[in-house]
């Protein structure tokens, strides 16, 4: 022992292993701990990487609102402008209604005097609106007060509408003579409609400008909150266990384990028996070839299976399976694909065990006159049961963590409403197995905090599996 210590000093040992440990910890272990932290925040793509420009814009706008509402001259100016707009619009609406009436009552609107009078009244009123969009723009402009950049304080659509109203009213008042009656009435109605909605907006503002600014500030503040990552406690976990999609994913994963594991074992063991039977000529070559699915990168296999099981592909047509539209069709294809991917493993393990079954033992059972079935059950099965148990446990893990299979075939689809009694209904992918569920929360929803919480729960579930794996494989080895 002491010789060993002198020969192999632990400090040299650590020095040699350090680089690999550091590499592993930095790229594989540390992120896991980091994501545990993320699980308790509201991290999303937006707030994990907030755009500083956007944040500055929001802050500037808030400061600007503060200045406008507290400095008396600015506040007064704003109130005046808004009131003026509201009044003008109100007047305009009234006159347009009168104009419309006049047109309707006239026999020929091009010659009717009353129509003409109304038109000129409108023309005069609308001139008051001509400079208003610019004025509004100027009053509610923070750049003038010295804030740059900012968001508009007033909906730019409302300002644009004022210009549109000005344009269409001037057009009406100057060109009504060349317009057909129906056309004219239609235009008037449209314009009245436009004016009404603008009027509502500005009247609301002028009656309570302070309140308007408060609402704008509130929405800015909530924007700012959304863009700031913060601690949310257990909120993500509450959301997770109330999410029908997650509960359904748990259920679907369990069903997949229950169906795919027996299938894989059955096919793998059957193939192992066939290709280790001395009755098959050239079995060594066949054995090597049939392990091919193992050698092929999963991306190529995935593409191949997508083509074969395309609703218009050979096997999709032959078996009548449409994995893009039917939940259980896709599920059947997953099972077949998973079996195809995994049988080489089960087969190899079983063949290894079969090779260990001694010929003497089998021959002895021949001499004893045991039937083929008894021979299989009493002699062969007990000898291969332990390695098979081992394979079963590992392959259960593979089904539990199935990710590439649904991802490559159809991304976990199709998308359907998912109802869980007591939790309600939500639209989601019906074949999202656990790991894929978390991934889709990252890649589709960009909801990182939620995804991290999902993964924390999944890791805990997997740890239960790992414990079972560890204890039972230790037992299996100990018994050998």
């Amino acid at each position, binding site marked *: 022992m002491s010789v060993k210590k002198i020969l192999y000093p632990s400090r040299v040992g650590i020095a040699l292993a350090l680089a690999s*440990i550091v590499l592993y910890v930095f790229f594989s272990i540390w992120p896991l701990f980091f994501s545990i932290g993320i699980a308790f925040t509201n991290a999303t793509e937006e707030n994990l990487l907030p755009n500083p420009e956007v944040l500055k814009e929001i802050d500037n706008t808030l400061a600007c609102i503060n200045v406008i509402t507290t400095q008396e001259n600015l506040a007064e100016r704003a109130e005046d402008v808004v009131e003026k707009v509201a009044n003008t619009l109100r007047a305009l609406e009234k006159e347009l209604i009168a104009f419309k009436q006049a047109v309707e009552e006239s026999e020929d609107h091009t010659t009717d005097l009353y129509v003409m009078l109304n038109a000129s009244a409108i023309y005069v009123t609308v001139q008051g609106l001509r400079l208003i969009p610019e004025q509004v723009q100027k009053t509610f402009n923070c750049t003038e007060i010295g804030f740059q950049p900012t968001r508009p304080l007033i909906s730019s659509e409302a300002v644009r509408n004022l210009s549109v109203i000005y344009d269409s009213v001037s057009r009406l008042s100057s060109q009504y003579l060349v317009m057909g009656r129906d056309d004219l009435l239609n235009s008037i109605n449209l314009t009245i409609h436009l004016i009404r909605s603008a009027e509502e907006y500005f009247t609301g503002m002028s009656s309570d400008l302070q309140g308007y600014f408060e609402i704008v500030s509130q929405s800015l503040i909530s924007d700012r909150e959304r863009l700031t990552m913060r601690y949310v406690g257990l909120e993500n976990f509450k959301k997770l266990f109330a999410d029908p999609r997650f509960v359904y994913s748990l259920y679907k994963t369990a069903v997949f384990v229950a169906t795919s594991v027996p299938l894989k074992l059955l096919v793998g063991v059957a193939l192992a028996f066939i290709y280790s039977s001395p009755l098959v000529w050239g079995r060594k070559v066949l054995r090597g070839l049939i392990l091919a699915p193992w050698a*092929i990168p999963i*991306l190529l296999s995935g593409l191949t299976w997508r083509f074969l099981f395309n609703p218009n592909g050979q096997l999709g047509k032959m078996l009548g399976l449409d994995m893009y539209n039917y939940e259980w069709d896709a599920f059947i294809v997953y099972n077949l694909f998973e079996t195809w991917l995994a049988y080489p493993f089960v087969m190899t393990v079983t063949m290894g065990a079969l090779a260990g079954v001694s010929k003497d033992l089998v021959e002895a059972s021949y001499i004893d006159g045991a039937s083929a079935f008894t021979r299989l059950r009493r002699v062969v099965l007990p000898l291969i049961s332990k390695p098979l148990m081992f394979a079963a446990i590992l392959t259960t*893990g593979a089904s539990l963590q199935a990710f590439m299979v649904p991802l490559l075939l159809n991304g976990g689809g199709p998308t359907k409403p998912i109802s869980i009694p007591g939790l309600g209904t939500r639209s989601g992918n019906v074949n999202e197995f656990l790991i894929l569920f978390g991934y889709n929360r990252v890649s589709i929803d960009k909801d990182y905090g939620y995804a991290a919480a999902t993964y924390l729960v999944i890791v805990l579930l997997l740890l239960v599996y790992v414990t079972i794996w560890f204890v039972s494989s230790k037992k299996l080895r100990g018994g050998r």
Partner: protein
Amino acid sequence: MGFSIGKTVLKIFATVMGFTILFVMLYPVLFIIIQSITPEKGIILTSLTQVFEYGVTFENYLRAFQDPLFYSALVNSAIISFLTIVISIVVITPAAYSFSRFKFFGRDTLLYVYLILSQVGGGFGIIAVIALFMFLVILNSWGIPIFNMWVLPFIYASGAVPFQTWLIKTYFDNLPKELDEAAFIDGASWSQIVFKIVLPASRSAMVIITLFSFMGAWGEFFVANLLRVQTLGAYIFQTAIGPRGEQAPSLFASLALIYAIPVILVYIFAQRYIGEAYRMGAVKG
């Protein structure tokens, strides 16, 4: 005599069955190869006999290399695979040697953790990668430009640490210890032992690492796609696995085959060690 004829019939029957099952199981492989050599008509073959109708062409393979995106992805994949191999060799060989010969604090625990992580399946790997992605997003926001192809080799090498450390440790366990012990008694320093004795003796270990690292790095597509690095795998994942793949199935079948062939070839070379690796999983620990 009658017994022997019966046995021959049985043998013929069993052999026919063996070949039939092989054909069924390898049908997807045959299908994708034939799809890749039919002229691009935008249709997925519904029967292999259609190849007689449409004829055979290698144009799809030539077209693949005329695609500049494919070509640059190929170059990226080659660079990334090479760097992954270099990093893995530099980092894992000494570590495996250390785990095989030395005793230090935490050694056994670490080996157990490595064993569990390399055996329990891919789920942890995927979760770790997604967690890493979030972490890199944050580093990126701090101004550390980490979203580029030079990070990938480190991620791949890191992911290979548990499995390959075990594999190479087993290899060193089987090397005679007397070699380095004799050198030590002769008064050689540790650096001399490492460079003059251990490194030359671990040439096969490096070959094993090279084979596995290449298969890992070349075949990988998920991490590359997540970090938006255009490797061959990521390129095929983004194009072929989706509507575009169905619009040009023959072209994308040949792209995917070009991508897969190096991995398959290396796999055939590495097969011996893969068997060993699985045995190791069943015996060690």
